[in-house]
């Protein structure tokens, strides 16, 4: 799910770089208030833990194995805002040192996995964590991976990367399976942690305000919108990209591509794409609003 450079159209990565920089900046301001310097070594070492956790394989059947991604686990142990920062750092190290994900696409990857992924993963824990903790943690792991994957796929489609519909379906199937595995791993690790020391997993009610819940909902909505539109009509997102002038018209276009482009120009699709644009705008406004609130509070 790490998007390399040159897969996203310039307006897409530039916008996402800006959004991620804003979101991470806000998180640093928020976290900075509750986060004494004593916690910084802890966050760094927990980042190393998430990195190293990828070496431990979980058997998932049919001879394959999965590993922890970690967004939801971090969110319910060290808290959502620190988790965003730790995941951001992991992605940056992966991009620079391991060439896993692009440097210009870092903003997109941070948005998908560190911001939207962690917030969507934290949302069920925040809302349901007190009453149905196990379910909430499982759903958190599930959603964090699914939302990240859905966003990454939507961004690729909107940038004009052509994918046949069958492939979009297959990718979503794979994302959903990975998401189930992540949910199962997260809940079983949390159960094992409870046996070691129940204090590791936070009390959901103890932390955070409404902004995080709103941002988590927005992340979830964006992921869901990407999923619905991309799976019902991948061409719709590509067309949106072209009508907005984001993705350039390919130099060579087959007659077939023209045909499908014409066929899908229905009123419903225009509404659907308008909806997605609206959601993107709302997300931007949320980030800007949260920033203003944070600034006012810290002033």
């Amino acid at each position: 799910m790490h998007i390399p450079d040159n897969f996203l159209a310039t307006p897409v990565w530039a916008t996402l770089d800006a959004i991620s920089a804003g979101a991470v900046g806000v998180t640093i301001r928020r976290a900075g208030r509750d986060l004494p310097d004593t916690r910084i070594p802890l966050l760094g070492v927990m980042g190393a833990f998430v990195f190293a956790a990828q070496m431990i394989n979980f058997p998932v059947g049919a001879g394959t194995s999965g590993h922890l991604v970690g967004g939801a686990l971090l969110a319910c142990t060290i808290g959502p805002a620190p988790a965003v920062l730790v995941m951001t750092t992991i992605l940056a190290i992966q991009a620079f040192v391991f060439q896993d994900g692009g440097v210009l696409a870092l903003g997109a990857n941070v948005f998908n996995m560190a911001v939207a992924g962690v917030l969507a993963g934290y949302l069920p824990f925040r809302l349901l964590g007190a009453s149905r903790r196990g379910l909430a943690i499982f759903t958190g792991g599930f959603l964090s991976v699914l939302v990240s994957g859905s966003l990454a796929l939507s961004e690729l489609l909107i940038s004009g990367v052509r994918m046949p519909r069958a492939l979009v379906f297959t990718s979503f199937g794979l994302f959903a399976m990975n998401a189930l595995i992540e949910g199962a791993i997260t809940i079983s690790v949390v159960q094992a942690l409870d046996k070691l020391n129940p204090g590791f997993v936070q009390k959901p009610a103890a932390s955070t305000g409404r902004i995080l819940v709103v941002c988590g909902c927005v992340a979830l909505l964006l992921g869901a919108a990407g999923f619905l539109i991309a799976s019902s009509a991948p061409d719709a997102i590509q067309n949106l990209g072209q009508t907005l002038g984001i993705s350039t018209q390919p130099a060579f276009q087959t007659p077939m591509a023209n045909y499908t482009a014409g066929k899908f120009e229905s009123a419903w699709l225009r509404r659907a794409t308008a909806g997605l644009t609206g959601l993107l705008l709302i997300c931007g406004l949320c980030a800007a609003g949260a920033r203003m609130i944070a600034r006012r509070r810290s002033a």
Partner: protein
Amino acid sequence: MHHVLVDHWSQGASPLHARDARAKILVLLVFLIVLATTPADAYVTLAIDAAVLVSGILLAGLPPISVLVRAAGILPFSAAFGAITWLAGDGWRAVALIEKSYLSAVAVLLLVGTTPLPRLLSGLEALGTPRILVLLAQFLYRYLFVISEQAQHLQLAAACRGGSSGRRQSRFRAAAGALAVLFARSYYRAEGIHRAMLSRGFGGRFSLLNPMRFGALDAVFTGAIVALLIMARVQ
């Protein structure tokens, strides 16, 4: 291991190693942005960009084949998408996609292969990255190897006790237990690290042994390469 090798490369002494981290980061950003905005059929621009990278690798004294092979780690992903684009009838775009993403990976590798990570992070901080992220990255990179080694030990121990056989459910639970132990050890290790740092007078910032200096040579280097890249793009 991959990162150990890159670490080893970054310790070299060459004109490129000697440049200020900020200069190299700026040049990399300009390179990546120029490359990202280059159209698929601008062969001359792409060729000049590739030539800049190759001369960079040679100037830095890095083993060229190793660098090219290591950057090829990106190819499975971009080749898959390239194949789809090709099948969709966009042959040129497919080739450009693969070529451009590969060149980007080589460029990033050239930066980390000539700049030790502490200097790279100090450079990023000087260019405006928040201090907390830089600190996090330093801790993360420092303890990455330590904790990875622990994870390997845990796996070896599990295998020695017959962890690779048995029912899937019990193996799954055993892996979760191992991760929980790794989590707890990392957590307690961090507390120890913090106490040790305080007792040695840590002031909230890592310092470099020899401070960064953006000299005239760095300015010439940045200016020349940026000018070359932009001229190649707008030619």
